[in-house]
């Protein structure tokens, strides 16, 4: 049997190295595209042979790694990670096509970083050993740091370092939580073991209630900073808006925070000393993120920053849905991760086009672009509509599931989130109206529409947004299978 999971992690990394040593832009982009396409093919093969009715790990690979510390090389994929791997495998080749004709310094490094990022992110999703998980988790920081630093906007220095250190602190706090779990289990059972499922299972046996809560909160902190959740989002607007378009898209595809919530936090949640408090914390943070992010987005003057804040708002649904603790709300949260990845990719790609063609992304300096860029407008309107939760597009499915099924356990937070829907619509439409419609701002000079490469990659994502908006089952079913499994694990404790 093919070690397919190792391959989809290693191939991008391998091609990253190859791309790094290419001499010209042509070689670099072709090498990058080939690498990502191989990954895509492998992922599709895996997806089609994936059994979505089983909550068990599939395509598992395990090997001893550091036996003296109980660390294994353990990979596997289930319904929680499969859609996210799929998302990365699909969007990144399109991202490379999107940047096909971009002019930039050091294209070999640029594409090498994209590939490295892909390898690292997929690595996070397939790791079933905490050590390995953390290794990939931290590795995702590095390409983005370079990405922002080298090809970023005017304020890139500040944004890059802030993002790097802020999220690194969070990762380290999470690492402390992992340590706590690891050693407590070690002293309980006398053998070191870093396996994720094992450690999560051992969590309930920890004697000290304070230790359990502390470990839970430390891990939660690590995940929600990455998600991100208000008030730990300060790194995000700067990083997202200063990053080059490809960087922003990579940020969007970095769904590891929410993934951690499902993979690690939820199975542990019932065994904390104060589960109801933890649920309240998560739910409240989710709801606050939704509405606060929406208001912040409304107050932005820069299109890219607005999208960044809207991303915070949308990711609030992930936290809220996870805290909803009903299998369908959890599935909704998972689906939101998937859908958000697609939608935000369109949004950032559109914004990137506008920025390169007009040289600005301040909304009030734009105006009437629809007349010059009809193709872009069509895709962008679709992206914006998906982002504001229009039915028939992926965003709605996720939001509907989260709202409906979280309401059962936490009505107040859902009501807050519902209020935010109008605000969400407001800033999206406001931006569309100011930037795209109305009379053309002649100061912007001569503007041409998106290239066919850009149209292709954005169009494919747009099609996916529509497709999964009407037919979410291909990814939603496996999410439901797994979230039912998670809920059944919780039900054992009667939470």
């Amino acid at each position, binding site marked *: 049997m093919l070690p397919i999971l190792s391959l989809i992690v290693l191939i991008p990394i391998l091609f990253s190295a190859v791309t790094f040593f290419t001499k010209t832009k042509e070689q670099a982009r072709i090498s990058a595209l080939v690498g990502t396409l191989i990954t895509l093919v492998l992922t599709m093969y895996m997806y089609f042979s994936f059994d979505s009715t089983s909550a068990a790990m599939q395509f598992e690979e395990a090997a001893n790694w550091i036996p003296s510390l109980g660390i294994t090389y353990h990979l596997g994929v289930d319904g929680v990670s499969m859609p996210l791997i799929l998302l990365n495998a699909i969007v990144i080749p399109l991202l490379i096509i999107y940047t096909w004709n971009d002019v930039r310094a050091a294209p070999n490094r640029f594409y090498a970083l994209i590939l490295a990022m892909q390898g690292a992110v997929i690595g996070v999703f397939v790791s079933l050993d905490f050590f390995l998980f953390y290794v990939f988790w931290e590795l995702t920081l590095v390409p983005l740091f370079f990405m922002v630093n080298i090809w970023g906007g005017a304020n890139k220095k500040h944004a890059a370092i*802030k993002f790097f*250190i*802020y999220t690194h602190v969070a990762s380290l706090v999470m690492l402390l939580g992992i340590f706590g779990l690891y050693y407590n289990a070690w002293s309980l059972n006398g053998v070191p073991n870093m396996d994720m499922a094992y450690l999560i299972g051992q969590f309930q046996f920890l004697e000290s209630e304070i230790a359990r809560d502390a470990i839970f909160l430390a891990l939660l902190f690590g995940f929600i900073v990455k998600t991100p959740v208000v*008030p730990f989002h*300060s*790194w995000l607007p700067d990083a997202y808006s200063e990053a080059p378009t490809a960087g922003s898209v990579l940020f969007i595809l970095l769904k590891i925070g929410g993934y951690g919530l499902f993979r690690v936090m939820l199975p542990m949640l019932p065994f904390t000393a104060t589960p109801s408090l933890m649920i309240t914390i998560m739910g409240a943070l989710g709801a606050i993120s939704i509405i*606060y992010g929406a*208001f*912040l987005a*409304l*107050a*932005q003057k820069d299109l890219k920053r607005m999208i960044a804040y809207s991303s915070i708002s949308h990711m609030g649904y992930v936290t809220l849905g996870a805290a909803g603790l*009903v299998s*369908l709300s959890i*599935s909704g949260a998972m689906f939101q991760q998937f859908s958000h990845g697609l939608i935000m990719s369109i949004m950032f790609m559109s914004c990137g086009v506008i920025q390169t063609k007009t040289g600005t992304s301040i909304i009030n300096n734009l105006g*009437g672009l*629809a*007349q010059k860029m009809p193709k872009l407008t069509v895709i962008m*309107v679709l992206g914006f*509509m998906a982002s504001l939760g*229009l*039915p*028939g597009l992926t965003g*709605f*499915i996720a939001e*509907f*599931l989260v*709202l*409906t*099924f979280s*309401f*059962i356990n936490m*009505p107040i937070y*859902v*009501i807050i989130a*519902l*209020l935010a*829907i*109008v*605000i969400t*619509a*407001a800033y999206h*439409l*406001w931006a*569309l*109206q100011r930037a*795209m*419609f*109305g*009379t*053309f701002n002649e100061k912007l000079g001569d503007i041409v529409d998106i290239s066919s490469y850009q149209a292709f990659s954005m169009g494919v994502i747009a099609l996916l947004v529509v497709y999964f908006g009407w*037919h*979410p*089952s291909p990814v*939603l*079913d496996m999410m*439901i299978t797994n979230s039912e499994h998670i809920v059944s694990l919780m039900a054992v404790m009667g939470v």
Partner: protein
Amino acid sequence: MAMENLAFLIPLLPALAFVLTFFLGKKLPSGGAIIPIIAIAISCVISLSITAGLLANPGHVVTQSVHWFAILNLGILIDPLAAVMLSMVSFVSLLIHIYAVGYMSHDPAKPRYFAETALFTAAMLGLILSDNILQLFVCWELVGLSSYLLIGFWFHKPGAASAAKKAFLTTRIGDVMFLAGIVLLFADIFAILEGKLPEGVYLLQFEEIFKFIPDLVAINSTILGMEVSHLTLVTLLFFGGAVGKSGQFPLHVWLPDAMEGPTTVSALIHAATMVTAGVYLVARTFPMFLAAPGTLMVVAMLGAFTALFAATMGIVMNDLKRVLAFSTISQLGYMVLGLGLGAVIGAEAVGVSMFHLINHAFFKALLFLCAGSVIHAVGTHDMRQLGGVGKVMPITFATMTAAALALAGFGIPGTSIGFSGFLSKDPIIEGAYVFATQTGNWIPYLFAISAAFLTSLYIFRLIFMTFTGKPRSDYGGHESPSSMTIPLATLGVFAVIFGALTRGKFMTFIESNFEHLDMNALAELGGYHLGPHGHEPLLILWMPLIVAVAGLVIAYLIYNKRVIDMSRIVSSENPVYKLLYNRYYQHQIFVEIFSVKIIYEGLALASFYSDKMLDWLVNGTSTFLIEAGDSLRKFQTGVIQDYAAAVVAGVGLLVILVKLIMEVF
């Protein structure tokens, strides 16, 4: 029957037409209009044949269902209610598409226009034949999207872009309420089932929901000190959605602005079809409304108020289309009022309201198309610059007059003789009277009858100012091409005779929709007492006609014969005129105070600055540390003696510290 099995094609064909037209329209003559026309024509035929089948056998409803995702389905439910709406929507849409071939002939963006209207038609048809509340919501939002796109069709006009946004946002408020209603409904059903969702049953199907009505009524929550049944909450939230979509007060503000779109769009979406979706929603879930204590009272009052409120503004507008817009709001108010009358007449209210809905669709579409014809010919909306158009455009004049008579409600009470508007509006006003006698609440009746007078006044003001007298500006003009006049004539025929032809049959047909439910028992749950009626005094029967004639006469005197001098009333000195002309300052209240001051400047900027604080905190930490490093490095003086001193001091301090700590612990 074969036709039944094709029911799924009704929305799918226009949807396909949307895709084809969008991508291929440019390559086809007249923007590919032929694609949606054929698609909608087929839909129309299927709809009509299904309706015919249902007329023959009302119990034989068409149902189809496929699994969608999770525990939800996509399905089709064509019962009499849906059948009537389907036929009307597909028919009117077909006519307007044909009309638009002529009307839009000069526009370069025709493919986009036809694609978007096809999308709208698909969504609207999908909405109507939904068998579950979620699918209805999905299509509900999609019609909202098409409305947004079509209002903003001429997006290069700042006014159109802004109006589109306003329409979407305002209806979005209602949509969120609707969504909240669905969420609450589902959560309650979930609670009733104690979390055990049955296999293979789609709980959001209407039939399934109706089974939970008694349980839902029993769930109560205390909100603001009032004990409220959850069914009331759910229905009020649904009604909130209807308020947004059907332009009821206070969410009607978008509808007049929506006239920035092409007139065909106004006719199709903002007069005949989409705006009635709210009414259709209430009719669709009427059993829930009937069982919800208090909801129908709210519905009746709000409908009546909107009918009058919009009519008052209609009489001062100078823009041809705006008058019609306010008229639409006002007529939608009647329909909503009609539904509210369910409190006293039960399921008959749906029949009454739907009857008005269908008739209104014909005559209002006609009014808009006539207006469009005028605008197409003369190029202006402003009635003050028109006059005497009737001579140039006789067909338009004739059809519009017929429509106006229908709107104003001319006919002979007690018989089936009359324009369609009369035959459907009259029962509503009579129902309001029954409502008044049964509940002692006269407000709906008074509002409705006053609105009837104003309706007649404003519509004939429009007719006289536009078509009679002398031209007030140099506009040229010609009669429209036949692709436009044929739909006009067709609609005209319907506006005149449809009511008379179908009157009795229609009501029973619609009422048969709820035959399988025990409406009286439901009304008991809601605390409504359905009483017998039909014996209203003669004055009440004749009253609508009397006010309509009065309106016509006054309009004739003022605007045609100019017997009454309006200059004192129509002036900026007159506070009432100013209030009406400025539309009760809604724009100021909604946009400037609510949106800008509270939402934007209040909440959004507050968030903005609080976020700056948060950011400052994060950046401040780093600045502090770097500054600290800058100060601390000064200890490293570079002088060896200092270094030696540090070593010695370190030894000394360490001895003392260790000693101290050991002593203390």
